């Protein structure tokens, strides 16, 4: 099932749902014809879209709003904070091409602080599915949960089949004594590759798909840092404010410390190019991740990655 199929099904079965976009129709191409006047395109007005979503929510609606991640999280930030956060309204933000998914667009479109910004808003919940299967397993609960949410939409397909979603819970893919990789979003696929390489090199490796960044699964973080010699945080986000910061906050809250290796963008944007090249250039392929953890080069081949089709 695709994002659009899921949204269409839910919106058709529940009159409360309104699908909105600030003229970002990539995820909702066929919805106007199906939803009629419950589809609202406000044009290129991210702020007005959020304000209008608040008005609709006051009337009992659940608006699912769409815009590019950087404009939804930053251009409209104060509207999200003030009109969704303060009144705790069920406005559901679907952020398109977050993190590395903006591939060739350039730094204007690189949302690498969205997790940090959104989790800083009281009442806001924040989610990042690993792939399309994870996405459709997560969204029904997120959309039916009272209060606002921010979801890094990720429609990439992987071979992995995910377990059912529970809000606030991470998905423990495996556990290991030597290394545990904590990750979210599209880098999950690269983490799977890295885990394979590390296991072949004889390490005991754990992998956690964080899924829910706020509320965060503190237990998953504490168990990973307690059970493994090394914890890796892997994210397409700035080093500040994302998963690395979350892990630090959780550890400090419990009076603990740990050996943590972060993969994140430290005080810089990434090279704009097609997604597989972004990963290669920035050192985020599964093979590169594994080799950095191992501390040596290997003979493994990085599998080919499908290039997502960009559309506005």
């Amino acid at each position, binding site marked *: 099932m695709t994002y659009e199929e899921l949204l269409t099904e839910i919106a058709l079965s529940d009159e409360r749902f309104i699908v909105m976009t600030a003229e970002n129709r990539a995820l909702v191409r066929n919805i106007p014809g199906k939803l009629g006047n419950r589809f609202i395109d*406000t044009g290129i007005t991210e*702020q007005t879209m959020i304000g209008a979503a608040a008005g*609709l929510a006051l*009337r009992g609606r659940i608006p699912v709003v769409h815009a590019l991640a950087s404009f939804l999280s930053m251009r409209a930030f104060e509207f999200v904070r003030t009109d969704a956060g303060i009144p705790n309204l069920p406005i559901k933000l679907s952020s398109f091409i977050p993190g590395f998914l903006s591939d060739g667009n350039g730094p204007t479109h690189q949302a690498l602080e969205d997790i940090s910004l959104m989790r800083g808003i009281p009442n806001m919940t924040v989610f990042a599915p690993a792939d399309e299967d994870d996405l459709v397993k997560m969204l029904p609960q997120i959309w039916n949960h009272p209060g606002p949410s921010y979801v890094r939409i990720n429609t990439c397909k992987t071979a992995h089949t995910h377990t059912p979603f529970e809000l606030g819970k991470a998905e423990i893919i495996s556990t290991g004594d030597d290394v545990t990789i904590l990750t979210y979003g599209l880098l999950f696929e690269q983490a799977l590759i890295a885990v394979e390489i590390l296991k072949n090199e004889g390490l005991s490796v754990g992998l956690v798909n964080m899924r829910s960044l706020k509320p965060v699964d503190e237990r998953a973080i504490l168990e990973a840092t307690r059970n493994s010699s090394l914890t890796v945080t892997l994210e397409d986000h700035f080093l500040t404010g994302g998963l690395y910061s979350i892990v630090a906050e959780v550890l400090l809250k419990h009076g603990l410390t740990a050996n943590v290796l972060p993969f994140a963008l430290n005080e810089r944007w990434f090279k704009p190019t097609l997604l597989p090249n972004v990963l290669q250039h920035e050192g985020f392929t599964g093979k590169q991740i594994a080799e950095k953890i191992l501390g040596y080069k290997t003979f493994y081949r990085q599998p080919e990655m499908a290039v997502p089709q960009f559309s506005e």
Partner: protein
Amino acid sequence: MQSVATPTKNLETIALKVREHIIKMSTDGGCFVGASLSAADLIVYLYAEFLNINKHNLDDPNRDYLFLSKGHDVPALYGTFAELGLLDPERLKNHLSVNDNIYWHPNTKIPGIEFHSGSLGHLPSVAIGVALDLKIKGSTNKVICIMGDGELNEGTCWEAVLVANAYKLDNLIFVVDRNQFQANMATEDLIPLEPLHDKFTAFGAAVKRINGHDFDALHNAFSAYPFETGKLNVVIADTVRGKGLPSIERRADRWFCNFNASEVNDLLKELHGEHLTQLTSETLVVR
């Protein structure tokens, strides 16, 4: 629709009481007294005459909606609510008290306030959301958003007009409290707005410009709602900042005021035409 003839006298009495409340709130921390006095007649008219809003229907989906976007004129709203029975007048003494929720900007803990404001340029879009839902449902409720003229500096006000025009929201009325001032100076000396009527017309709205202190003019204008089928309604209400207190009227430096107790007493007398107040309290510069 209400008749044009009778209500005026009563409204003037209510408005005078509301101005008294505003003046009483302008001490012990103070409030945005100038903007509250300019919007007072508008707010009184809308709640007392035009809108289907009363203490019994505040949760009824069939009520009308008023959004106070400029926000810092909320003492006029508190005063109106007190006079119309939506708020216990005794609570106005709690202005800025830690034990109540009556402060410088609107919040929904006060029954009748539909949405919080204070950050300018937000509520035009929130009002659009409500108006859109009413259109989807085929409901006939009216939606009003009161904006300040200074607030029109914010681009999102104009985004909202574009979107309201696109969705033909003739159930929505944007009311501009055109008191000619923004925080520190005359609008025309900082970011000129005129010709304001033409600006809104060019954006596709049906516009009426009236004296915002004349209840007959207000009544005539709002009685013509909806002004034109399929068009956003805009009322530009020409008002006077500080209206009712000649000693602060049209003064750029009297935006936020924190008067001392004797000034408040003098201003209450001034409101009733007894004399002009000699103001000695410091002029506060908030922004």
